[in-house]
């Protein structure tokens, strides 16, 4: 008996009781559907985080005060007072450093910013003109802080689009004034929106000259961080080392374990974020896998019922000369068709679901060939795994007992 014939016959048997076939396949539909949707969503999240971090600059290095953390990036920094403007100048001018093109010393705090009517709590960044270049930011209208502003400790501010909408209801902010910590600043420019809602909203920022922030606003003579632009993304490790050794010697520290600062790249953040979303995806996929398992057991249950119900038919087939192999194949193929068709329907539903969710949440729609292949193989595998026992049971029925069965 040819396999094509067994397959057509199995299709025939399955279409006889459509409701039962549908319900049996439903477990697989849901299982495969949720696996596909979750993997796709996980990958979409990963990609959107990646996009956002990449937008910040893939050749961006950040030096923050505080001890190096062996595991990766230390989250809350800023407590340290070890980084100074002289450190930044040294990085810029040192002959040992060949991989850094721009240095942006910064000092930022979250604080209350008000106009006469509105107020908002936002990040105030003390910056120098190099900030724009290092952070790949640009000015939409007006101008950014100049070296003159920094030298003269002027009270000017550049605001992000979010601040404009919060404080000025999107009217033209140039020339208006805002109050930060009781001091009045004149707005001279507005940055272009960078979009995204990553770890920090790049549009909800207020820039003031670094010197003004340090001395007039927050009373500090140290830096919050130093942002560095490397020549290219390929020299990040070299850059990290060069800057590290320079700062160690400037801080009179002998070996890297004593470092009172940390240097991390966007890649480090990316890795941390990827491992976080990865864990999340794995967890959710695990839950979906359990539903697949339950679906598989459902298939096995239905196949066992089918074997019992068709005992007489099996007996007859064996009496007429069907060998064990044929009976096994017949029932196994029925189970595989069930799970395979269920898997394909589940795949379509899963893709549809992740497409709808990605549209609703404005995240990218990612569809990997990998997950589709996985789902197909897994569903067929479940058919074989859970169809095997009922099929064997059918094949081992004794023809006389099977024929006598009422």
């Amino acid at each position, binding site marked *: 008996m040819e396999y094509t*014939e067994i397959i057509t016959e199995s299709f025939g048997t399955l279409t006889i009781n459509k409701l039962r076939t549908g319900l049996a396949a439903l477990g697989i539909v849901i299982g495969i559907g949720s696996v596909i949707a979750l993997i796709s969503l996980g990958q979409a999240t990963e990609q959107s985080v990646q996009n956002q971090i990449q937008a910040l600059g893939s050749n961006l290095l950040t030096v923050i005060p505080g001890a190096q953390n062996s595991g990766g990036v230390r989250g809350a920094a800023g407590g340290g007072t070890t980084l100074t403007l002289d450190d930044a100048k040294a990085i810029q001018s040192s002959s040992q450093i060949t991989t850094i093109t721009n240095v942006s010393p910064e000092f930022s705090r979250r604080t209350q910013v008000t106009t006469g009517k509105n107020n908002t709590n936002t990040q105030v960044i003390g910056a120098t003109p190099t900030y724009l270049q290092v952070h790949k930011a640009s000015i939409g209208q007006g101008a950014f802080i100049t070296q003159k502003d920094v030298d003269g400790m002027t009270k000017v501010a550049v605001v992000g689009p979010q601040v404009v909408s919060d404080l000025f209801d999107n009217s033209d902010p140039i020339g208006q004034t805002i109050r930060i910590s009781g001091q009045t600043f004149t707005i001279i420019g507005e940055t272009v929106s960078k979009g995204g809602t990553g770890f920090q909203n790049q549009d909800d920022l207020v820039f003031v000259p670094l010197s003004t922030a340090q001395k007039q606003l927050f009373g500090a003579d140290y830096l919050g961080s130093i942002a560095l632009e490397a020549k290219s993304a390929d020299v990040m490790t070299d850059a990290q080392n060069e800057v590290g050794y320079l700062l160690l010697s400037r801080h009179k520290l002998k070996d890297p374990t004593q470092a009172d600062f940390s240097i991390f790249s966007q890649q480090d953040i990316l890795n941390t974020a990827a491992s976080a979303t990865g864990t999340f995806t794995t967890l959710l996929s695990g839950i979906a896998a359990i539903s697949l398992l339950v679906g598989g057991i459902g298939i096995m249950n239905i196949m066992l019922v089918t074997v019992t119900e068709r005992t*007489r038919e099996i007996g007859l087939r064996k009496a*007429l000369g069907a060998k064990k*192999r044929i009976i096994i194949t017949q029932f196994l193929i029925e189970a595989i068709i069930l799970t395979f068709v269920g898997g394909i329907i589940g795949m379509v539903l899963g893709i549809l679901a992740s497409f709808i969710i990605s549209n609703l949440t404005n995240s990218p729609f990612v569809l990997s060939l990998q997950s589709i292949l996985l789902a197909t193989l897994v569903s067929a595998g479940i058919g074989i795994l859970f169809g095997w026992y009922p099929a064997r049971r059918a094949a081992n029925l004794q023809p006389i007992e099977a*024929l006598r069965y009422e």
Partner: protein
Amino acid sequence: MFLVAEVVEEAGEECLLGDKVPTIIQASHLRKVYQTGSVETVALDNVSFEINKGEFVAIMGPSGSGKSTLMHLLGALDTPSSGSYILDGEEVEKLSDDQLADIRNRKIGFIFQAFNLLPRRTALQNVALPMSYAGISKVERMERAKKYLEMVGLGDRLEHTSNQLSGGQQQRVAIARGLAMNPSLLLADEPTGNIASSQAEEIMQIFQDLNEEGHTIVMITHEPDIASHAKRIIHIKDGKIVEDERNGKQRNRRF
């Protein structure tokens, strides 16, 4: 109804030759014991007989006599506890499950009391089923199935499913299915048990015609009326053969 002249002649010749007629069934000292817990039930005890090609044998006995067990053994559906059974040259008691399936497929045509047609399949599909297990091509299967259905008078019911056919018609489909592989032995188990008596006579007529064409038929029944259509009647009781007689007054014989 569907007599083919040469076949009849051949069968007749063989009968005349007497001793040289090939033996289809050679059962010697068959014993079958069923074990239920610690209780042993002897269903068949030291049963020996031979059936030659072209015979029409009825095996008769009351229920519980062991005739069903005998039928299972003769049909290679089961193997004896001891004794030997040679079917058309094959020592059945020595075969594995799959080899038994092969023997049943090639050498035995089953006709069951409850017809045992596949539900929701057409008459053609049902008759073609044993041929599919023998690896015969689909085209040939359909051709042969059609031929045998026409032979049993169902040429106009080829595409009817079993639930669209009467009991007698279903049994005729089953007979066509039994003939499909051109077996050495037609084995019928109470073939008229589920059929209205008016149609039962038709079925028996078909058996007689088949026998006259040269088919060897063994029929199990408890009805003397049905058994009287056979040429030879074996009576069985309590697992033993009590009588083995030639039936001189065979009913409905055409000549």
